[in-house]
């Protein structure tokens, strides 16, 4: 296989929230290429897996080994044989590289805890975003019902809450997440919405999102700026309620190249410092490289909501919101729900993004936000998929603005013509390389050395210092 042949992305789970599986862009448009990220940044270290099916079985063995190696050093004395333990998992982890690496880490945690502690009452709690059926789909697809002997339940923001007293006042978590005597924070470090979390204590975010009622999520996102919001997950994690139940964290660690290992310890603050440093060095470079794109059409081509589809290890939302440097904490306003009255930012619009072609993506969850089709031309491939979007109750105006096209080729041609651009970028779940067309590949390869230098010499030292990580 030529290094620049377009690569089929990791296989993803079929869902009732998405259309029937479609042929990928890499299989449909011959002119696409997949550029290894090391051609942009030669110092990126190789990953143990990027989720591709050809090597997945062996890759998962490595994930399992890495999980065991990391867990071997964890103090599990807080878990007694008579305890019941919830492993708390978050939905987005199953969108990373097809989801199998995260699933493998979770299953391995269970095995090791049983071996080390004698505790057998270990439950999986799958936190989902909005759809009540997401957890059932995940449990079935990844074989969790068998692996956990039926001790699997989903939980979502609408489920019954439990009031938790914190230093900032009462907050509401989801009761079912904490219905065992102890819990394990089984996380992944995808920076995902770096424009919201600013890589400021990102490892704690689940405590005010995945494990929290919608009121708490709303407080975090809408009642604070995206720097000061970092108080909420930390206040929850530091609360007596959590600390009395918390045992340890196990985090699937990634770079844009893929999974690089597992970091497990009782000290979540220590994990967060390590992850933040790694992310600023790697995802920071990719984010600034995306900022070099001044005109392009994006293609959604994966099994998650469009904003959360990865390309080159970064989600589409990163491309959309790179109006400014999300990692620079001196920048007061990046994208966020709370808006400055004097300098508002439309986080649903980037003038450099000239169009979006939807080959396949989940509907629902209010994504894309209602403004996006008003400011960015959108093209939906196929009448069957268009009908799903018409019936999406969370985005009733999208199909008033979007154009239905017969084929991916037609959508791409129309988007490029209207957007006056010859550059295409694909968000298909890929890590380790970026699938795009040659025009964009040439641009990014030409700009990467300067980006590498700028990040290494100017931005990274600043980002680290702002977080006390110099």
């Amino acid at each position, binding site marked *: 296989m030529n290094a620049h042949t377009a690569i089929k992305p990791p296989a993803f789970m079929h869902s009732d929230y998405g259309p029937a599986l479609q042929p990928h862009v890499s299989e449909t448009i011959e002119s696409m290429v997949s550029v290894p990220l090391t051609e942009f940044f030669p110092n990126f270290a190789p990953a143990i897996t990027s989720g591709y099916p050809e090597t997945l079985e062996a890759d998962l063995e490595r994930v399992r080994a890495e999980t065991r190696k990391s867990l071997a050093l964890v103090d599990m004395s807080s878990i007694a044989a008579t305890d019941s333990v919830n492993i708390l998992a978050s939905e987005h982890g199953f969108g990373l590289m097809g989801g199998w690496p995260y699933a493998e880490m979770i299953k391995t945690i269970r095995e090791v805890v049983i071996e080390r502690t004698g505790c057998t009452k270990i439950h999986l709690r799958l936190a989902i975003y909005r759809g009540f059926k997401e957890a059932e789909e995940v449990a079935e697809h990844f074989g969790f019902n068998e692996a956990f002997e039926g001790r699997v339940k989903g939980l979502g923001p609408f*489920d019954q809450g439990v009031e938790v007293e914190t230093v900032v006042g009462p907050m509401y978590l989801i009761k079912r997440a904490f219905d065992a005597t102890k819990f394990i924070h089984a996380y992944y470090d995808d920076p995902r919405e770096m424009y919201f979390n600013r890589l400021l204590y990102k490892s704690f975010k689940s405590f005010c999102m995945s494990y929290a009622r919608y*009121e708490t999520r709303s407080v975090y996102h809408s009642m604070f700026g995206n720097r*000061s919001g970092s108080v909420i997950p930390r206040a929850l994690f530091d609360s007596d309620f959590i600390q009395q139940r918390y045992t340890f964290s196990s985090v699937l660690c990634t770079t844009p190249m893929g999974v690089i290992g597992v970091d497990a310890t009782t000290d979540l603050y220590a994990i967060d410092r390590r992850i933040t440093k790694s992310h600023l060095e790697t995802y920071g470079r990719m984010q600034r490289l995306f900022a070099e794109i001044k005109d392009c059409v994006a293609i959604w081509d994966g099994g998650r909501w469009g904003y959360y589809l990865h390309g080159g290890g970064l989600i589409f939302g990163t491309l959309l919101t790179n109006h400014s440097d999300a990692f620079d904490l001196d920048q*007061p306003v990046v994208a966020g729900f709370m808006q400055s009255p004097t300098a508002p930012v439309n986080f649903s619009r980037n003038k450099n993004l000239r169009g979006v072609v939807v080959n396949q993506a989940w509907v629902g969850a209010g994504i894309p936000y209602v403004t996006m089709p008003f400011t960015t031309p959108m093209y939906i491939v196929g009448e069957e998929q268009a009908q799903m979007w018409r019936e999406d109750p969370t985005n009733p105006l999208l199909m008033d603005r979007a154009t239905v096209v017969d084929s991916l080729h037609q959508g791409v041609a129309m988007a490029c013509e209207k957007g006056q651009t010859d550059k295409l970028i694909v968000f298909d779940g890929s890590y380790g390389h970026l699938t795009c067309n040659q025009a964009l590949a040439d641009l990014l390869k030409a700009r990467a050395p300067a980006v590498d230098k700028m990040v290494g010499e100017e931005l990274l030292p600043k980002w680290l210092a702002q977080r006390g990580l110099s």
Partner: protein
Amino acid sequence: MATIKLVADYNADPCTGCKLCDIVCPSGAIKMEARKPVIDEALCIGCGRCVDRCPEDIMWMIQRSEPLVTTVHPDEVDQEAVTALLEKAGIEAAMSVCVCTLTPGSEIAASIIKGAKNLEEVCAATGMRSGCGIYCVAPALRLLEAAGCDMTPPGQHRWYPSTLSLYDLSDEVCAKYPDAYIEEDRAVFDPEHKYGPLSKEIL
């Protein structure tokens, strides 16, 4: 303002009367009568949550014959009262409280001035929560609290009274988390320093 094109419907025969559709309805459009849901089309904001929640898969959304436009126009209410409520709550008038429907803080406040007394009535009046249903809740609850509405949480965990804001944090909290840019964010989002903690005594 929201344009609602869909409305919930269901098949009554296999319905078990579990009430889950009623519990997740954000606008109070579903009421249980004789162990069956009764859907008030005038209140349904078309979010589809009941359809997704139904364990029997016997609910669905259908197109309305005419879209329902939910809005409270500024002219309908006393603008000084709207401004005063927003200021008391510390919510910017132009802030998109609901980012799915772009419902601004001023419209949420106007719906309360017009008579909405709880979260469900605000949703029905404005269409807020017809999208993701998640991120708009706290600002709306804070406006209700500032207006002196009853914040006792309703049954069946429909909502909990979370109204914390950036402006409520105590000096103790600011000291505990010195790297959280609290003062810096306050200066950004309230450059005129017109907002402060929501006074509990006034309620």
